């Protein structure tokens, strides 16, 4: 049969974000797939170098519109590592609590999106309705629904009250009940089973080889979670299990995320019931001594890494962000091979992609209508040339 190459995207291949997949098909079956990233590069890493640490807390939060808190946690942690300060325990607990809230809201969001991609919009309506409760909690506790501005270098900015603790416990009861219902739906509902079982299989060996992260990795039966393997904030003291699945497919990812929701609820309960008393933050200087640090967190979508280098001023010299989607996009290109065209949205949405977080520069030649891949050496020469022409921007 003749091979045909078709572009999927950049207009919204799965979620409402631009990314292009070039897929080569034979009939209905995909034989080759290539990903082109770089449609919504925002130049954030350059911006970080021009703002102070204090301002950067709020800008790192805008890397991702869903897992905003994990990015600011990462940045604050990296800065704390260089400064050599340790936030008070209450501050760490509150930080961890917000990270878990974020996981609940992100996983519910994914569940809805996955339902939508399967053509099961009831699930989308219901899970997003439940997600609203967490967003209301966020609004009350942190001051905003998505970009919380709750983290700061040396702790967190707001304390929680007893009334809020009661409210969290009440919401967690509802969440637990709803999550159990979703688990029943995910394990028994024919629409979901027929659509997801055996779709997007990534074997354990391939997951390790392609450096998959997060629920995608755990759905490929690898027990790896930064919260457990390299505990940060208060995770070292919390009781929770790392959930894995051995079905390796999109259904496995659904099960991993749904069961993780239960673990989140358990952790949140434990944290508010065992919240240490005391301060929530320590005072830190505005200028950060020269040094470098790497900080890792487990974002709802997987491992998120920030590398920070400081030079003694109040502005960072370099902040490098490796968002989880960048690690996962490789295995999408791999799992697409052998799948059906109709499964593309489901496989792409399966990793819970966030293109905006991970996008890199794409160099386009408008006259020749082509894009170019540059080597590190070429990029270096290009940037020296660019700075020579425009001394300061």
């Amino acid at each position, binding site marked *: 049969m003749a091979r045909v190459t078709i572009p999927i995207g950049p207009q919204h291949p799965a979620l409402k974000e631009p990314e292009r997949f070039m897929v080569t098909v034979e009939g209905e079956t995909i034989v080759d797939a290539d990903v082109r990233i770089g449609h919504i590069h925002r130049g954030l890493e350059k911006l970080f170098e021009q703002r102070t640490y204090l301002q950067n807390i709020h800008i790192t939060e805008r890397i991702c519109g869903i897992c905003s808190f994990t990015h600011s946690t990462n940045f604050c942690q990296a800065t704390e590592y260089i400064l050599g300060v340790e936030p008070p325990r209450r501050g760490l607990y509150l930080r961890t609590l917000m990270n878990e809230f974020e996981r609940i809201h992100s996983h519910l969001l994914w569940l809805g999106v996955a339902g939508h991609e399967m053509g099961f919009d009831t699930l989308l309506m219901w899970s997003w309705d439940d997600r609203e409760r967490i967003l209301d909690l966020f609004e009350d506790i942190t*001051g905003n629904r998505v970009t919380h*501005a709750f983290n700061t270098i040396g702790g967190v900015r707001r304390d929680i009250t007893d009334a809020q603790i009661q409210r969290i416990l009440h919401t967690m009861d509802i969440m637990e009940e709803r999550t159990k219902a979703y688990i029943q739906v995910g394990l028994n509902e024919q629409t979901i089973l027929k659509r997801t079982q055996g779709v997007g299989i990534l074997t354990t060996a391939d997951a390790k080889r392609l450096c998959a992260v997060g629920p995608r990795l755990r759905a490929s039966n690898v027990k790896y979670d930064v919260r457990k393997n390299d505990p940060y904030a208060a995770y070292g003291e919390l009781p929770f299990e790392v959930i894995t699945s051995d079905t390796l497919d999109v259904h496995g990812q659904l099960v991993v995320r749904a069961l993780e929701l239960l673990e989140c609820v358990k952790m949140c309960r434990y944290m508010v019931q065992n919240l240490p008393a005391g301060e929530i933050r320590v005072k830190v200087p505005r200028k950060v001594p020269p040094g470098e640090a790497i900080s890792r967190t487990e974002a709802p979508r997987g491992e998120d890494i920030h590398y920070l280098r400081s030079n003694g001023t109040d502005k960072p010299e370099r902040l490098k962000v490796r968002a989880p989607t960048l690690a996962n996009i490789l295995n999408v290109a791999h799992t697409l091979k052998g799948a059906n065209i109709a499964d593309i949205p489901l496989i792409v949405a399966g990793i819970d992609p966030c293109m905006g977080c991970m996008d890199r520069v794409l160099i386009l030649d408008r006259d020749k209508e082509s894009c170019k891949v540059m080597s590190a050496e070429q990029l270096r020469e290009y940037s020296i040339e660019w700075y020579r022409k425009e001394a300061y921007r």
Partner: protein
Amino acid sequence: MKRPGIMIKDVFKRLTMKPVTSKYPAEKSPAEPGYRGKMEFYVDKCISCGMCAKDCPSFACVMEEIDGKKRPVFYLDKCMFCAQCEESCPKDAIKMTTEYELAHLAGNPQIVK
């Protein structure tokens, strides 16, 4: 054994529920008490130190000359309501409120002085 129709109970429950959405703006929808919205500025407390403008991440807060004195002016179209200005102010001259209805027509920007 896979059970079909697992969602039927929920479907019936939802049928008798009142709608989850509200009729905003016909019906008011107040923000949560902890929400950070439009700020209030108490000019008599301000000592013109400029810390708020220095720490604002989005340059929404800038120092301008008003009545011969340097005062912060908040351009709400640029503001992301992070409350960094409130935190940085040594004199508590800035306070966030829960007001969030800030939509306006072009050419009529929302400014807090």
